[in-house]
């Protein structure tokens, strides 16, 4: 248990909550400028086609139309839209249904939309491929020259690596299988699901002379700022990015979006502010979602359940542009002497796949947790005991963790969930309505690294905190204020947070990778140390005096890995005749180090569980295989969870002592979605005695499996 602090660790409502719920918060879409134009995007109806000609004459002559961009007159590269290939704002050929073909700016939304219909595009349809494994077959249409196996990319190095599967090896797989008493093999399939954040993409661009300001919902004003400057060929000081309030992103709003650049270019050409808005359907199809995967596992174990060897060969459908890693992760949570994982990231003519909360994990945990659950069932070992025996003690069995509450999460969680009381052998209940329980474990890197904070203390005791966060819904503004108040030993209401504006705030790492608290929060602690030294040296500021402190620490971990852990327990009821799954009980147990704000941290966990349940039970971007057109883009069609679908989610934190981060806080944002699908899959198996190996676990699959 961690030592109690004065401000940190106490449940605190969001400091901007009132503004948000009363409609006074200014989201990017709410910003209005005089003489503003509206922009809309024409998108490809074909999954793969060469554009033979575009005639914009009629559209340009239409009332209110001020400018039109196409691949013929706009050769801007959207560098964060593809880490391997040169992706233009408008590409020829177009490579998925929804690929941008033209953008129109007009005096109002309606005229912009009508003008899109007047653009004549002549397409030559090309062959297309929707599935990753099919895309890698000989003879499949090449989406980019050189074939559909996308190169290895790493977030630590720049530029693409060789065209090969991304591979990890330790030990000797064949020896491991030879030493095993039993070897199990199976295959699991997960589908493309959308981030489905509430706020769709929007960008408002405005030039004052040669300075560009872009209001856009972004998870990272600093990287968005850098991307826009690079792609528009501007000096950093000639670009300002503003995001005062955010309506969610879940990885969908990292970096800059093509709509930011389109709005900037249209504003440049028309000399007027331009607001480009995406519809909900465009947000589902044209930004990105989680990659679909297929995963083949081979696992060797001893009779007592000790893991000997794990092999995983996976395929990820990345869409036609390489924005994301395509990773399939989850094997890392288990200790095992012999491991080999290979992931083939393939180009497909589907919606682009990239970061979505815990990018490689929920689908990977679905696979590994499913096969390990089958193994513990076959060996008649209680899954809790199986996990206690096999979960990771050291990262990849070699590097120590700075702290780990993983075993405690399993032990405590099993008590809180009343695991032993609820447990019965899989498929052993009579009658059409059966209950079942399952658990799964996971984690997420709680990295440390460079970020900045500026503190200004005035003579009234006000602390002005400048941080480059945007608060994507995590409560980051409040978290930052709590850390500042604690570090300075002042009351929370003395802290004024200045955020989300690159002209007013320093660099921040961006609200991705669950890094904001550990990185930017730690910079606040470091800046506060400086400020307290100044106070000690010269006393409090008087009159117009202001004390200023700035810190840009770059902490690193020597020979250690820092992780947050999560173990989830779920009980479901399956109606085997009607095929319905209902969650009866959900217990989420997390080690995120010290919890800065229990209120918003618990909300984060609940939100991640809800998203994971949607992925497990409902969601899939479904394609018509004959035309390559997505059939259900949007909240209705994708069956995103509604309030009435949401079960009660019990959240517990096992607060470990950790020497790093602000007051020992680790990551909270991404871990909650990691174990959900795996736990749910195991609970359904326990109920019906049959494993559903393809997501989502829907009525047709359950009835089909049982009949």
């Amino acid at each position, binding site marked *: 248990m961690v030592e109690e602090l004065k401000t940190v660790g106490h449940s605190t409502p969001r400091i901007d909550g009132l503004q948000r719920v009363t409609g006074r918060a200014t989201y990017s879409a709410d910003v209005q400028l005089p003489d503003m134009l509206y922009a809309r995007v024409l998108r490809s109806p074909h999954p793969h086609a060469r554009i033979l000609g575009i005639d914009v004459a009629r559209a340009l002559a239409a009332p209110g139309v001020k400018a039109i961009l196409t691949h013929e007159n706009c050769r801007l590269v959207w560098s964060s839209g593809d880490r391997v290939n040169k992706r233009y704002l408008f590409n020829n050929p177009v490579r998925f249904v929804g690929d941008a073909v033209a953008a129109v700016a007009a005096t109002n939304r*309606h005229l912009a*939309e*009508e003008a899109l219909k007047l653009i004549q595009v002549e397409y030559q349809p090309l062959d297309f491929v929707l599935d990753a494994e099919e895309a890698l077959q000989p003879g499949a249409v090449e989406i980019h020259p050189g074939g559909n196996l996308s190169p290895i990319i790493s977030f630590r190095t720049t530029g693409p690596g060789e065209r090969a599967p991304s591979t990890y090896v330790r030990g000797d797989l064949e020896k491991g299988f030879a030493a095993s008493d039993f070897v199990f093999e199976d295959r699991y399939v997960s589908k493309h699901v959308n981030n489905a954040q509430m706020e769709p993409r929007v960008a408002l661009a405005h030039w004052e002379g040669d300075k560009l300001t872009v209001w856009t919902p972004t998870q990272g004003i600093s990287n968005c700022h850098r991307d826009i400057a690079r792609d528009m060929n501007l000096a950093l000081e000639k670009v300002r990015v503003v995001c005062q309030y955010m309506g969610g992103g879940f990885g969908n709003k990292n970096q800059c979006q093509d709509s930011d650049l389109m709005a900037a270019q249209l504003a440049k050409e028309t000399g007027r502010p331009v607001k480009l808005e995406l519809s909900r359907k465009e947000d589902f199809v044209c930004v990105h979602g989680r990659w679909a995967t297929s995963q083949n596992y081979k696992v060797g174990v001893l009779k007592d359940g000790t893991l000997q060897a794990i092999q995983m060969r996976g395929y990820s459908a990345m869409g036609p542009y390489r924005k994301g890693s395509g990773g399939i992760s989850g094997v890392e949570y288990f200790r095992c002497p012999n491991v080999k994982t290979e992931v083939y990231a393939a180009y497909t003519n589907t919606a682009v796949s990239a970061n979505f909360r815990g990018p490689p994990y929920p689908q990977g945990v679905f696979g590994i947790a499913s096969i390990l659950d089958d193994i513990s069932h076959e060996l008649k070992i209680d899954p809790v005991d199986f996990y206690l025996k096999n979960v990771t003690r050291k990262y990849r069995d070699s590097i120590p963790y700075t702290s780990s509450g993983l075993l405690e999460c399993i032990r405590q969680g099993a008590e809180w969930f009343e695991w032993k009381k609820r447990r019965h052998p899989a498929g052993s209940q009579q009658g*059409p309505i059966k209950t079942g329980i399952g658990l799964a474990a996971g984690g997420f890197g709680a990295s440390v690294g460079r970020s900045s904070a500026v503190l200004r203390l005035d003579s009234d005791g006000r602390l002005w905190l400048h941080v480059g966060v945007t608060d994507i819904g995590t409560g980051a503004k409040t978290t930052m204020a709590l850390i500042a108040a604690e570090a300075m030993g002042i009351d929370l209401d003395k802290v004024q947070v200045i955020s989300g504006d690159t002209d007013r705030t320093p660099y921040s790492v961006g609200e991705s990778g669950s890094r904001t608290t550990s990185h930017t929060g730690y910079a606040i602690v470091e800046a506060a140390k400086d400020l307290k030294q100044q106070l000690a040296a010269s006393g409090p500021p008087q009159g117009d005096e202001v004390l200023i402190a700035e810190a840009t620490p770059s902490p690193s971990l020597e020979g250690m890995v820092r992780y947050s852990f999560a173990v989830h327990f779920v009980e479901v009821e399956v109606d085997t*005749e*009607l*095929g*319905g799954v209902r969650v009866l009980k959900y217990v989420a147990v997390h080690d995120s180090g010290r919890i800065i704000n229990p209120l918003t941290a618990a909300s984060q966990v609940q939100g991640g569980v809800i998203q994971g349940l949607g992925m497990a039970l*409902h969601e899939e971007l*479904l*394609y*018509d*295989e*004959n*035309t390559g*057109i*997505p*059939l*259900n883009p949007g*909240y*209705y*069609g994708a*069956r995103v*969870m*509604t*309030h*009435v*679908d949401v079960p009660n989610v019990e959240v517990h934190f096992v607060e470990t002592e950790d020497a790093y981060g602000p007051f020992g806080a680790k990551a909270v944002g991404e871990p909650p979605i990691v174990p959900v699908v795996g736990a749910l899959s195991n609970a359904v198996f326990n109920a019906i005695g049959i494993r559903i190996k393809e997501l989502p676990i*829907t*009525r*047709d699959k359950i*009835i*089909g499996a049982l*009949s």
Partner: protein
Amino acid sequence: MKSFTNVNPENRQEVVSLLKKVIEEGKTASLAGGGSDLLGMIKDDLVAPDVVVNLKDLEGLQKIEPHSQGVRIGGLVTLQELSQHPLILSQYTVLAEAAGTVATPQIRNVGTVAGNICQRPWCWYFRQGFPCFKHGGDRCYSVVGQNQLHAIFGGGPSFIVHPSDTAPALMALEARFRIAGPDGERVVPASEFFVLPREEVSRENILGPDEVLVEIELPPARQNVKSTYVKIMDREAWTHAVLSVAAVLEIDQGVCRKARIVLGAVAPIPWHLPHVERMLVGQRITADLAGDAGRAAVSRAQPLAKNGYKIPLTEALVRRTLISLAG
């Protein structure tokens, strides 16, 4: 979205003459009750009417009126009102329950009963604008496509399922629909209102382009009647039925005297099961008989490649509905 003219007629004669005039001018019109679906379809370019006839101001169609011959329900009564009305709840339970399952509270607050009955299909091919039969095209894309939610009865050449929740309930209640048209008004049984695609592929009911559904007439409530609407959904709100059962049973001293069973979301129209009803009349509804009825309900089903699960699902839901209603 194409620009359109909005008109607000005040009475039903005005609606009909407006529609007539629009057609004579070679233009198209769409009727808006609550408009909750129509406006979305216009924005998605699925329909592009020249004129939107906004029915909100029509006189006398916003009421639920009991009278000696039954109950008159104005076409503009909202789904919310219908689901909460004491008389409907107690005497015509199946209808209140059906209305209460539609979409979300926001949509039920504006969506009307006539609009729900006349709702266009929610087939994903139709809603994504594929040039299918329902959009005047030459094929049904679901036949060789994603047909998980499509028809197992009455399909061909289109395999849409009728999306309405209130329609199966009204058919089960033997409601009659009053239609206003250029030659005055006519009243048809609900069972004759809907048309199969093999008869008329471009629309789901008998309404001509110059006609409007103005009222629903329910027969007098009978003694010893129990009714219910059971809807299977792929999430708990804001989605159409995967399958629904509207059942009305008259049970006197344990014996079923009359039965009406209508399925939703399994056919291009609400799917009436007279052969199952005949099995029940004059019998005590035991678990065995309910099981037989469930099996009979699906005996003539013709599944497509991906909707075969609807057969055991329907069999089970018919059985369970009968057992719970009779029990």
